[in-house]
């Protein structure tokens, strides 16, 4: 197509002259009656007079004008074409590898690894970073459902709650440890994902959003009212903290502790830093898992389902299984994050699992760019740090937060990183053959 335009705008000077001559000829035809001939009133009678010089000037003006006009248009078109080609080149380069984003990703990993070492004594920084990472993990989990499979889920917090309460109940009533409860809570959340997914298989878009919104509320209301299991509005207290392979983070006592085992002086910051690295590891595992899933048949089927469900069915893809797997895996990752949340806080109550949380997680996915893993990190940073930084502005905080979100959506309607990386490439697979 571009070759056609190219051929069209590269006009030789003789062709331009011909074009202008044609215009001049039309000007001549039109000009003879309109300019060349005129009537003059001579003693009450009309007589036709000629104005050949005027006609000649008109034709000359048309000829020159056309030449200039054509030249100008061609210049404009050439410039536009050059701009488009430059844009296409940039697009191709983005498609080729997007090395900048890769470097940003590795840089972010480096910073997150070094952060607690730099800020060992600054509990606030490490705590906030831990919160950011929880949201990153939740964002990556929800990304499977919303970003990849295109199922708008407004009740994601329900799975977060299921994970947290599963650990809370197992730990306080049955004495399970963090590591024992983690897989069980993930499985529990996944089955809740299927429970939500099953009745909503036929729903899309707004309708699905409303049902998932209701599901999130149902879970919260159950937690408030099922006092025997969940402790009702009071929640579950004194949930045990995760240990370092059986070594608790406690002041020195009879049993070996983390500090005594490694011969360190006890410091409460050990646990904070450990929790930070724990969520970092969980989040990185989540990222690795989701990135790999995306390149597998199931991941491609999720994306295909987002693009066109009917076409998927026509290709022999079982839409039910694909949707349920997206719900289940997204929910499982949310459940893992919930277990960590419960272990970190030591206390959970339905207060922590309101619709507001779902909205923030969804905002992270949408703001980051649907389906983009790095986008989720950037959006989590924005959404967690903005309210933190805005603490000085007290009551204007949410206003600033909202304004920032609107501005981002105006500048980057597809999210901060809207770029989609293909799951496999022809050029990569046949690179050696070329």
């Amino acid at each position, binding site marked *: 197509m571009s070759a056609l335009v190219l051929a069209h705008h590269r006009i030789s000077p003789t062709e331009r002259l011909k074009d202008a001559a044609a215009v001049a000829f039309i000007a001549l035809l039109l000009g003879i009656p309109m300019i060349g001939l005129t009537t003059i009133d001579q003693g009450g009678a009309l007589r036709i007079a000629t104005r050949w010089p005027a006609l000649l000037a008109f034709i000359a003006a048309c000829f020159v004008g056309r030449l200039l006009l054509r030249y100008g248009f061609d210049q404009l078109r050439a410039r536009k074409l050059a701009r488009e080609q430059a844009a296409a080149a940039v697009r191709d380069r983005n498609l080729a590898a997007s090395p900048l984003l890769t470097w940003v990703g590795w840089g972010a990993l480096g910073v997150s690894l070094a952060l607690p070492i730099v800020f060992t004594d600054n509990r606030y920084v490490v705590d906030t970073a831990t919160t950011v990472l929880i949201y990153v993990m939740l964002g990556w989990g929800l990304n499977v459902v919303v970003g990849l499979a295109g199922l708008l889920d407004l009740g994601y917090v329900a799975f977060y709650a299921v994970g947290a309460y599963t650990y809370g109940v197992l730990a306080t009533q049955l004495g399970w440890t963090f590591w024992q409860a983690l897989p069980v809570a993930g499985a529990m959340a996944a089955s809740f994902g299927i429970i939500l997914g099953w009745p909503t298989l036929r729903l899309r878009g707004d309708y699905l959003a409303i049902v998932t919104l209701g599901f999130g509320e149902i879970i919260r209301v159950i937690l408030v009212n099922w006092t025997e299991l969940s402790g009702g509005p009071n929640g579950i207290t004194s949930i045990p903290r995760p240990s370092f392979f059986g070594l608790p983070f406690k002041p020195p006592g009879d049993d070996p502790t983390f500090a005594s085992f490694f011969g360190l002086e006890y410091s409460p910051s050990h646990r904070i830093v450990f929790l930070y690295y724990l969520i970092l590891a969980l989040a990185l595992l989540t990222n690795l898992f989701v990135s790999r899933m995306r390149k597998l048949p199931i991941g491609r089927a999720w994306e295909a389902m987002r693009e066109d469900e009917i076409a998927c069915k026509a*290709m*022999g*893809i079982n839409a039910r299984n694909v949707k349920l797997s997206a719900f289940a895996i997204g929910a499982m990752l949310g459940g893992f994050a919930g277990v960590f949340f419960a272990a970190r806080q030591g206390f959970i109550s339905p207060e922590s699992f309101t619709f507001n949380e779902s909205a923030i997680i969804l905002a992270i996915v949408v703001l980051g760019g649907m389906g983009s893993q790095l986008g989720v990190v950037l959006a989590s940073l924005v959404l967690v740090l903005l309210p933190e930084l805005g603490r000085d502005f007290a009551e204007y905080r949410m206003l600033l937060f909202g304004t920032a979100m609107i501005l981002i959506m105006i500048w980057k309607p597809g999210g901060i990183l809207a770029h989609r990386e293909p799951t496999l490439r*022809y050029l990569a697979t046949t690179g050696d053959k070329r």
Partner: protein
Amino acid sequence: MSAAPQPLLSVERLTMRFGGLMAIDDLSLDVAARQITGVIGPNGAGKTTFFNCLTGFYKPTLGSVRLNHPQRGPMRLEELASHQVARTARVVRTFQNIRLFPKMTVLENLIVAQHNALQHASRFSLAGLFGLPGYRRAETAATEKAVGWLQRLNLIDKADTAAGELPYGMQRRIEIARALCVDPLLLCLDEPAAGLNPRESAELNELLKHLARDEGIAILLIEHDMSVVMNVSDHICVLNYGRKIAEGTPAAIQRDPNVIKAYLGEEDADEELHPEAVQ
């Protein structure tokens, strides 16, 4: 009627009713293997509804659609869900208004079409997650098959481009290539020539003939472009108001008085039935 002793697909007394509307009325039709069967008829004649019934998107009110699967034996298509029609019966369709996965690349579109084989090879994603050799081989094979079709349909230069960014004619070809990646026994094409220029439509003719003769794929073709239908079809079925009004070779169809009446109308129905003639 058809040359083959046993038809690949036999539609018997198929009826599809939407409330009071009889979209398909008692339609019987045989589709022979390795042949191109054209389905034509004026707008609203029930052609696409017929496809939807064949491919499991609609449940027909009455009647049966039997497929003689060479490996699996006889199957009843009307009892299968839409994904099973493609997956087990290998009856694959394209759509009148192109349905690609627009944000995915052309190659990815063709890989998604091989989902079931790949999903099986990935062992519920576990072999895939750990990159086991069995899965890698399956993925390479799938890529090779996709690349093979892309080369034959002259689309290989666009393999890594998002499908939605390509011109219309190319998208039509991609949709056919994607359907071919499912290894169809019967390929149902819903107006594949719509929106193609004369050169593209001539290329389509050659492709369809090649697929039927050399690849042995039976083709069921809905098309308004008579230069395509009359040129490639071995057999044509004409629908009007959901009823089959004629069936036969292209030459016979062109002479059939019922068909001429349906297309050109009669007496005062003239203008209503054929508004194109006025323009």
